[in-house]
């Protein structure tokens, strides 16, 4: 599918925002400003953005513990996200969720999820809502390679097919679940598994925004047209540890440096669009600078924002009780 200049710039801005966001959170975590478990998405940007650029306000996504990228790509407020990760009252979830639970249902973002495999059943539900209320919407679950082994994920394949839901399963296979390699943990193959359920599936290169975008476009079209679920197997890489603090000794010496050098989705995008003359390097640089400023501002705001007051502990448990 041909993307216009505006769309390409938006994609660049989105990917750049995710990268800058994640690298900055990495630094802030190391500096001690961010508590808890934080899982970063840097290196995987083309997946979230390539998929979500095909979605609109009718559509829902369910994310994983590694959710910042999906949030940003689905249009969540970036300063609100940063404040949330810092545990502030101004955070997207009032400081109650943190990195692992950022959500904005109004944007169709059904939440990062602390439970591996938590998302796929949920998007079956979102897809059912779309189908039942005839909104034309689709629902996407992002699923790690590790999460692909969880029963909840596989049940969802079958359910989505049996109900012919407008559902899309995106396997983000970054080669590892924590320190365990997917080439060990995933018997068979993602594509053949999907086919085992009668679900059309395709594998794409996770540094190639365009390939992901096209695969997602096809899946979204199938879903909106009543053709049922699809699966996309994206092979990609994460740059940071499983969570912040992970020394990544299970990776080969020099592995990450090499990936950054040779397999970077942003660099790949830049090369593609400039070599094809679709965008100027200067445009890309300008956006990068804007993004840097925006993240800087978001961090400053988050750091100076107040913590939630203790009485908030007791609110938001029930609508009424």
């Amino acid at each position, binding site marked *: 599918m041909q993307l216009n200049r505006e769309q390409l710039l938006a994609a660049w801005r989105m990917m750049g925002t995710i990268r800058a966001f994640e690298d900055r959170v990495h630094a802030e975590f190391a500096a001690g400003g961010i508590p808890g478990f934080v899982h970063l998405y840097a290196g995987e940007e083309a997946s979230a953005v390539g998929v979500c650029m095909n979605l609109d306000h009718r559509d*829902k996504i*369910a994310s994983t513990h590694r959710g910042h990228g999906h949030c940003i790509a689905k249009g969540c407020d970036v300063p609100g996200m940063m404040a949330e990760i810092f545990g502030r009252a101004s*955070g*997207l*979830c*009032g*400081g*109650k*969720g943190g990195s692992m*639970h950022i*959500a*904005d*249902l*109004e944007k169709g973002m*059904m*939440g990062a*999820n*602390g*439970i591996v495999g*938590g998302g*796929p*059943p*949920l*998007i*079956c*539900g*979102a897809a*059912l*809502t*779309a189908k*039942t*209320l005839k909104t034309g919407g689709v*629902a996407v679950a992002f699923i790690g390679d590790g999460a692909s082994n969880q*029963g*909840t994920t596989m*049940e*969802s394949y*079958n*359910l989505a097919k*049996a*109900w012919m839901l407008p559902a899309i399963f995106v396997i983000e296979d970054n080669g590892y679940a924590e320190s365990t390699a997917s080439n060990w943990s995933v018997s068979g193959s993602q594509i053949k598994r999907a086919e085992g359920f009668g679900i059309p599936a395709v594998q794409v290169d996770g540094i190639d925004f365009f390939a992901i975008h096209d695969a997602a476009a096809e899946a979204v079209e199938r879903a909106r047209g009543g053709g049922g679920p699809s699966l996309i197997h994206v092979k990609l890489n994460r740059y940071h540890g499983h969570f912040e603090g992970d020394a990544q000794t299970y990776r080969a010496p020099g592995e990450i440096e090499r990936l950054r050098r040779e397999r970077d989705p942003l660099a790949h995008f830049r090369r593609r669009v400039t070599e094809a003359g679709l965008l100027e390097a200067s445009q890309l640089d300008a956006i990068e600078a804007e993004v840097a400023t925006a993240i800087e501002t978001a961090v400053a705001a988050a750091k100076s924002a107040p913590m939630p007051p203790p009485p908030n502990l007791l*609110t*938001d*448990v*029930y*609508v*009424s*009780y």
Partner: protein
Amino acid sequence: MAKKSFRQAINEALTQEMRRDPRVVLMGEDVAGGLGSPGEDDAWGGPMGVTKGLMPEFGRERVLDTPITESGFIGAAIGAAATGLRPVADLMFVDFMGVCFDQIFNQAAKFRYMFGGKAVTPVVIRTMFGAGFRAASQHSQCLYPLFTHIPGLKVVIPSSAYDAKGLMIQAIRDDDPVIFFEHKMLYDDMDEVPDEPYAIPFGEANLTREGDDVTVVALGRMVKLANEAADALRRDGVACTVIDPRTTSPMDTDSILESVGETGRLVVVDEAHPRCGMAADVAALVAQEAFRALKAPVRMVTPPHVPVPFSPALEDAYLPTAARIVEAVRGVMA
């Protein structure tokens, strides 16, 4: 007023709410039945026939049979609830919670809190519980204490057909996730049940007997036994108040404390396992909040700390009985 069974009462509540609100959908294994089969459609209406007739009226778009995949479809019900439907999902036996509890207690229960108040998840999970059917260890448990333990869930346990209808209607209209417990031995119980829709608010206990001597708190099928015991005791001059909390979360603690304030004596009857159970929950409440009123030790009538046995001879010994309640009441009167 018409006499209706507990089963009919729930069926009627579901029917009326589905007529009222097109966002209400039903899902579960064989809630209609016969899908893909060569014979009759709507062949089952659930294993106990509770949802029979709903599919013919509302169609398969709103009455959805599912594969055996509780995480999948209970999770789907929750995801659907968070995005605009008001699903009623059928977890056939509560004993099956172990394959899908995550979606209930980590997703549905916590969305609103984790997301800073921005989520609404109006899902109802209907489920069957309780012993007496000779259904053995994996099909006879109560387990509502596990759900009551979890903040973010509401837990409903009707003890009569009248309550079942009103509480189901409330459950469907409620904006929080509700686990709705149906005792498998109550489905054929008859009660006066109005034809028109009515909602019974959560957190309001029902006093099924009133008396000044002893407060008896009982739940689900135990309410019947408590009433029986109270009636027998009344004949001997001991007057019990029997309180059916109807919902354990929220729970009407005021009614319990007020009654104990008057009687000074508490017997809690519960069919669930004793450890960290509802009997302990109510007893602890009273020991903390109404201690000064208590004239005697609190007494808990529950099964022993063992799984539910199959053999009728053992299952009958397992379950609380009216006789054991009478004995407990006499104990606190002594």
